[in-house]
C-alpha cells in the first residue's frame, strides 16, 4: 500500500510539474521535456502499478516489445520524414 501511495504521489507531482513547465517558455526544449516527464510517469505506472518489477521474464519481454516497435516505427520512418524536407512542393 505504501508503495502505491508513494508512486501515486510521485505521479501526481510529475503531472503538476509537467503542467507548470508547460506554462514557461521553453522554446525548442518544450516537447523533449514534456515527453521525458511522460516517459518517467509511464515507467512508474508500468513498474509499480503493473508490477513489472516482479513480473516473469516473458511478461517483461512483451512489455518491452511494444516499446521497441514504437522505436522501430518512429526511428526508421523518421529518417525519411525528417530528411526528406517534407511534403511541400520541394523539387529537391
Amino acid at each position, binding site marked *: 500500500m505504501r508503495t502505491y501511495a508513494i508512486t501515486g504521489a510521485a505521479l501526481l507531482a510529475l503531472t503538476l510539474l509537467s503542467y507548470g513547465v508547460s506554462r514557461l517558455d521553453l522554446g525548442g526544449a518544450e516537447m523533449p521535456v514534456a515527453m521525458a516527464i511522460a516517459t518517467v510517469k509511464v515507467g512508474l505506472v508500468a513498474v509499480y502499478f503493473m508490477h513489472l518489477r516482479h513480473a516473469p521474464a516473458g511478461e517483461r519481454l512483451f512489455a518491452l516489445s*511494444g516499446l521497441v516497435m514504437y522505436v522501430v516505427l518512429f526511428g526508421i520512418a523518421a529518417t*525519411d520524414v525528417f*530528411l526528406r524536407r517534407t*511534403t511541400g512542393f520541394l523539387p529537391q
Partner: protein
Amino acid sequence: MTPTTERHAGESYLGGERTLRSWLTTRDHKRIGLMFLIATSLFLFVGGLFALLLRLELLAPRETLMGPMTYNRMFTAHGVVMVWLFMIPAIPSGFGNFLLPLMIGANDVAFPRLNLASFYIYVAGAVVALFGLFMGGADTGWTFYVPYSAQTATAVVPVLIGVFILGWSSIVTGVNFIATVHTMRAKGLQWMQMPLFVWAIYGTSVIQVLATPVLGLVLLLIGMEHLFDWGIFDPRRGGDPVIFQHLFWFYSHPAVYIMVLPAMGVISEVVCAFSRKNPLSYQAIVIATVGITFFGFLAWGHHMFTAGMSTFAAGSFGILSMVVAIFSAIKVFTWTGTLYQGSISLKAPLLYVLAFLFLFVFGGMTGVAVATMSLDVHWHDTYFVVAHFHFIMVGGTLTAFLAAVHYWFPKVTGRNYPETWGVAMAVLVFIGFNVTFVPQFLLGNLGMPRRYYDYPESMQWLHVISTGGSWLLGIALLTTVLYLAWSLRHGAVATDNPWHSAGFEWRTASPPPPYNFPGSPALHRGAYDYTGQEPPEGPAALP
C-alpha cells in the same frame, strides 16, 4: 503394424459427438484447426478462380474477357482473398492450431474459447469482406493506396472493415499461441527442445500481435477518409499519402513473414522426417526464426524506393532488407545440409520440400535483387515484382502448405492419401508454377507494369505461356483436392505413425484423442532423434 486407428476410433477427436452443433461449439483445438483448414482452402480456390480469370483476360492485349472495371475489381479481390483469407490464416490458424499443442505436449491451447472466437471472427471478417467484394467490389488493389482508395466510388468500406475484423482474428490467435507456448509446454520441455514448427508459429504470432493493430488503425482511417472526407492523408489539405504507405507497409512487410515463417516451420519438420535426420543445426534455424521475426519489422521501406523517400532512409531500408534475407539463407543452407547422409524417402511431402527449396531460393534471391535499390527502380510495380512475390508466396508458402497437407494428412484424418497421385501432382504443381511465373520475370524486365489489363502487343506471347501455366497449376490443385477428398472415405487406414517420424505430434494416436495424450506425453526423446534402432511408434508407453 496394426491399424491402431480402429483401436482408437471411439476416442478420436473426430469421433464422439458428430453433430454439426458439436463442431460449431467445439473448443478442441484440433477441430478448430480443421475448420480453419477447410475454410482457408475454400478461399484458396476462390482466390485461385479469380487468378485464372485474370490470366485469361491477359491472354491477349486489349479488352477480351472483361473490361478494366471488372479487371481492377478482380485483381483486388484476388489479392484480398489470397492474402487475408488464405495466406495469413492458412498455416498458422489451421496447422498451427492443430499441431501447436500436440508438439508441446499440451492438452489444448491456453484459451480454447478464445480460439473458437477467433474462428468466428475470421468467418465474420470473411463474410463482410466478401460482401464488399461481390456487392460492387473495391478496385484499389489489396494495398489500398491513398488518395485513390479514398476517392474511388467502389465499395471500399466493407472490404476495409472486413479486413479490419480479420485482423482481430489474427491478433487473438497470436495472443493465444504466444501464451500457449510460454505457459503450456509439457513438464521438462525446454525452449531449445521445441519442434521448429513451434518456433516458427511463435515468431509468426509475435508479428501478428505487434504489426496487425497498426494495419487495423490505418484501414479505419482510410474508411473514415472515404466516408467523411476528413483529409487525413489528403494532400489537398496538407496530408501526406506517403505516411500512409509507411504505416501500411509497417504491417504488410512483416505480414510477408506471417505468410512465410510458418511455411519455413513446415519445411523444417518435413525435411527432418523424410531424411530421418536431425536438422543440420537446430540453433541456426532458431536464430534465423527469431532474427526474421525482429528484422522483418525493419525492412518495410523497400516497398517505397520510388515513392520519393529520402535517400538516406532508402539506403537504410536497403541494408536492413539484405540482413533479413541472410536469415532465410541460413535456413535454406540448413535444410539442404540436413539431407546429407540421411535415409531419404521420396514421398510427396518431400517432393514439395524440394520444390520449395528451389523456388524459395530463386524467389528469395530475386528478393535481394529487388532490394538492391537501383535495380528496384526498374522492377518496382512491374511483373518482375509480381513474379518475385508469387515465387515466395505460391512457390514458398503454397508448396509448404501442400507439403503440410500431405505430411499431416494421416495425423488429421487417420487415412493415407494415394502416394502415386500425390507425387504426380507435386511434379505438376512445380511445372505449372514455373511455366506461370518465370515468363512474368521476363515480362517485368520488358517493362510490363502490374495491374494492367492491357499491354503492348509485343509482350503477348509471354502472357500466353503464363496463362497456360496457370491452367496447369489450377488442374494440379483441383486434382489434389479431389484425391484428398476421395481418400477421406476410401484411403487406406493409416497407422499411428505412418512416416515413422520422431515428431512429438506423432506420439499419440492418429487421429489424436480429444485431449491429445492419454496421460502425460512421452517427450523423453528429442523431436528429431533418429539415431535409435526403432523410431517411436504409436502412443508412447508411459514412464
